[in-house]
């Protein structure tokens, strides 16, 4: 059986190799972008040619019989057997063998798809209605956006010739992670992790130093699509993101640029960092009760027993880095420390973001965020001390 598969697959591979990027392959499939694509396509062509053979045979007979044996007045239908054991066994066994090859071949390449290599680079995928989010190993979520079908969406890059594993889960309903060029698809469930892996083979983009973003090498090939393939409601069809493949060097540069958040104002960054770090799993921002205190309106609220006695920059910093030092009465001490997982500016961003959630201090937070941005941009300005902001 394995020999049969190997023989068929080598024949098909040779044939489709000869036809690579011809009208024939373009008619059927998108660009072949991963190590899975050639084997999947070859198996598809194998099934197609067998099907085409039988279809032509059967329809040829249908038309031939239909014309040759059409009714003529006064002419009887000639006698013929109504049953032929040899023939019937033949047309049961031959399809069975062909089906068996399809099954084993398909199962073999499928099992390669589901077992990810141990050296894979892991990307965390989070999905909700109607947005994909990738968190890269360095904690970055892409800053680069690209318009896909008239909608600004995050732009996702992958390194070429590297095994990449996606660990995925959904925040609400079922979604499905589908990149046609890679021939991979896997459903994402709420409250459960699913994985899929891929090894991209074709470089589509390069890192542009001047623009500080990844741009297509060939303008006619703007990169791949990430689609949602499981119906999830109103904007199901608009969850399309651009996926690009870069050389490993370019990928590293792109990745570092995505992790560099210095150009993002504090309040926005606070929201981004809180979301990427899963803060909102426990802390709400709308006053509803989660498994930890809400962030709404807490800024400047008294916190008797804590070092400063109220919620301020120091309080937030301590709560993130040493959550166990002061626990709000009535709440469990179950937060982990983010020591070493988060930069100083990100802590400041979260604090400013929390400040902005209290309407009384929202204007102050905006002003501080703006000042901090200006200080970043002008090198001459005095460095701003985050912990001693000018506040009353």
């Amino acid at each position, binding site marked *: 059986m394995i020999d049969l598969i190997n023989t068929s697959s080598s024949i098909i591979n040779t044939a489709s190799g000869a036809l690579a990027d011809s009208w024939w392959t373009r008619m059927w499939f998108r660009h072949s972008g991963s190590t899975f694509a050639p084997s999947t396509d070859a198996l598809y062509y194998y099934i197609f040619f067998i099907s085409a053979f039988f279809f032509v045979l*059967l329809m040829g007979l249908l038309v031939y019989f239909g014309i040759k044996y059409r009714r003529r007045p006064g002419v*009887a239908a000639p006698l013929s057997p109504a049953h032929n054991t040899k023939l*019937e066994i033949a047309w049961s066994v031959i399809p069975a063998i062909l089906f068996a090859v399809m*099954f084993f071949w398909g199962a073999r390449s499928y*099992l390669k798809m589901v077992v990810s290599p141990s050296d894979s680079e892991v990307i965390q995928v989070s999905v909700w209605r109607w947005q994909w989010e990738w968190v890269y190993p360095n904690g970055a979520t892409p800053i680069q956006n690209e318009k896909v079908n008239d909608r600004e969406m995050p732009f996702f890059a992958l390194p070429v010739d590297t095994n990449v594993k996606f660990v995925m889960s959904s925040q609400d309903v079922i979604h499905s992670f589908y990149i046609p060029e890679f021939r991979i698809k896997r*459903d994402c469930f709420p409250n459960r992790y699913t994985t899929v892996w891929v090894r991209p083979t074709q470089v589509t983009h390069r890192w542009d130093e001047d623009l500080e973003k990844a741009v297509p090498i060939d303008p006619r090939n703007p990169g791949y699509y990430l689609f949602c*393939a499981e119906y999830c409601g*109103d904007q199901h069809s608009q969850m399309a993101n651009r996926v690009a493949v870069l050389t490993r060097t370019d990928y590293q540069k792109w990745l570092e640029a995505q992790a560099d958040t210095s150009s993002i104002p504090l309040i926005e960054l606070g929201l981004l960092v809180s979301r990427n770090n899963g803060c909102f799993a426990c802390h709400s921002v709308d006053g509803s009760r989660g498994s930890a205190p809400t962030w709404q309106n807490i800024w400047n609220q008294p916190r008797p027993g804590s070092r400063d006695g109220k919620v301020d920059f120091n309080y937030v910093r301590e709560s993130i880095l040493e959550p166990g030092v002061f626990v709000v009465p009535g709440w469990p001490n179950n937060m982990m420390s983010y020591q070493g997982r988060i930069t100083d500016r990100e802590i400041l961003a979260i604090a400013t973001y929390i400040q902005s959630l209290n309407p009384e201090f929202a204007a102050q937070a905006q002003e501080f965020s703006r000042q901090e941005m200006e200080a970043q941009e002008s090198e001459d300005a005095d460095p701003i001390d985050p912990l001693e902001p000018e506040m009353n």
Partner: protein
Amino acid sequence: MAHHDVSYLAPKETFLKTVMSWVYTIDHKKIGLMYLVAVLLMFFLGGVAAMLVRAQLWEPTRTVFVSEDGSVYMNPAEAPEGERDSLKTETRGIFFQPITTYVSRPAVNLLSGSTVGAVITASQDGSPSVSLPESDGQTSNPLNIALTDDGSPIFTETTDQRGNKVWELRRENPDSDEPGPVLASITVDGRGNPSAEAGSGLSTRKTTIREPGSTITTNNIYNRMFSLHGTIMVFLFIIPSIPAALGNIFLPIMIGAKDVAFPRLNLMSWYIYVFGGIFALYSVIAGGVETGWTFYTPYSTTTDWGSVTSMLLAAFILGFSSIFTGMNFIVTVHKLRVPGMGWFDMPLFIWALYATAIIQVLATPVLGITLMMLVFERMFGIGIFDPALGGDPVLFQHFFWFYSHPAVYIMILPAFGVISEMLAVHCRKRIFGYRAIAFSSIAIAAISFLVWAHHMFTAASPVANVIFSALTFLVAIPTAIKVFNWIATMYKGSIAWTTPMLYSAFFLFCFTIGGLTGPPLATLSTDIHLHDTYFVVAHFHYVMMGGTVLAFIGALHHWWPKFTGKMYNEFWGQIAGWTVFVGFNVTFFIQFFMGTQGMPRRYATYSPEFELMHKISTFGSWLLAIGFLIHLVVFAHSVFAGRKAPRNPWGGLSLEWETESPPLEHNFAREPVLTHGPYDYDTVVPPHYDPALYPLPERSDNAPSHH
């Protein structure tokens, strides 16, 4: 007394009696005919939904204009003057005008004398807004509301004792820096509900105003259209189409019985169908569903749109109708065959209906239980499938497909039976491999219970997937055998190219394509790519529509003279047939390429590179609609002006061709005597057929034996 017409279609003495004779009837033919009218109506409704879906896909996207309050306009000129500059563009599906829902908001009318001076309104999130009346530009503000420099009213934000957020609108106080008296205030309580309060110092009137709220996007209408198409076509059209309509009319006649085993149960099945249909219709009127016909959790348990619960109840109730019909057919086939008719003397249509009935009785309860669990979860928050409540969404998929995969064979097996009948009659040929076809029906019914998880290759565990992939290929073998047998039946036949024969050939063409595109979906690695793409859409339309629907229309023509007593126009029947055939292939063949190119299904908008293919497909759907309309005209013409049908217009041998056209009230004047098998076309001149038109082949000594 003159000859008394004892046909089941003969009217009773008065109109009322005629109507009541249909309402109370226990005659299987009348029940079948009522089913037939109902399923054709449902086919029309589902078809309209399909046309709208295709129309929406004519263009990939359309730019709409969204104002700050969320109103959607197709054209910026439609927006109010002041909002035109602030419109943002968004990409949405095309074709439908947006529908705006209205929300009531608390408001206070500030009255100056008898005229309304201003209206202060709480918006959805509670933040206040004031609409000032039209003014001459000089005294813009008859109430002297405190204004900022740019002319917008000043609200002061405070918090009351309970911690509720309060916005106060004050009167202008030009004399001092102290704020003036409060005119009105808006309070948002802890739950986020806004309320408006009148202040002091002015005559005011509390009121609520109705304002445009959120706008249902065009995508949402598309989503409800395809869900409507799916639910109607599956539950209300295709499942009852051949078994409950044509099966009801012909199963008892073809086995020489007076009626089905339980005529009253049969009538009950019909009324349950009507009842379920009312629930479905209510669901459509009350907003429809946008879950797809598959009701996948947790989407279906959490969506707010439409009326999912009543649609679930509709499918639940329709299941009982299906179970009753199935039970009735099983008992009828076992107990009411005419003496002398053994199992292998039955027409193959009966075999197919028997296999279908077994699936209906065994699988439908699982769907009923599953849908009830879903209803309980939606109504009472019991966590079965929703992970937020501790449930498992994949469990729902297992339960659902445990019914819905066998249901695919409820849909297609009766079509197999119909094709076996039509081919034999119109080719005047003994069916090739009778036993193989009969047993393959039973084999398909049995294996159909073991392949459900192939709908879940991207969801379930890899080990299960490998097993289900193998089992799925098993079901392909008996199906392939049937197709080979049908083609072999045409060999050395005497083939009359009537409309039913034409449709049999169309069926073989389309079903073969539908069948051969099954293996890429059963094969694991290729399915991963093709799963939930248009390839799947094309595949199941080739099987369900190219298979069942084409066979159903062929069967309608085949048996039309028998159950109506009128002939149809053969020429226009064939014109309509070719139009449907061409339209069908134009619509769906291109979708295979869309699928391999990676176009996911259930998309209201799509990437521009698919536009040409979608346009071709939509164009095909118009041809299809024209074809069906011609059929409608042909049937209507036949009813009103068709020439009377003879007893046996085609020269068929099964028992329905021995009785009158239309059949008598109890099918036969006396119990028929079985003198030949249903497929003895090489030895018997069919009853009530002109022997001069039916030459029998010369038999030599070594004539082939019967099956």
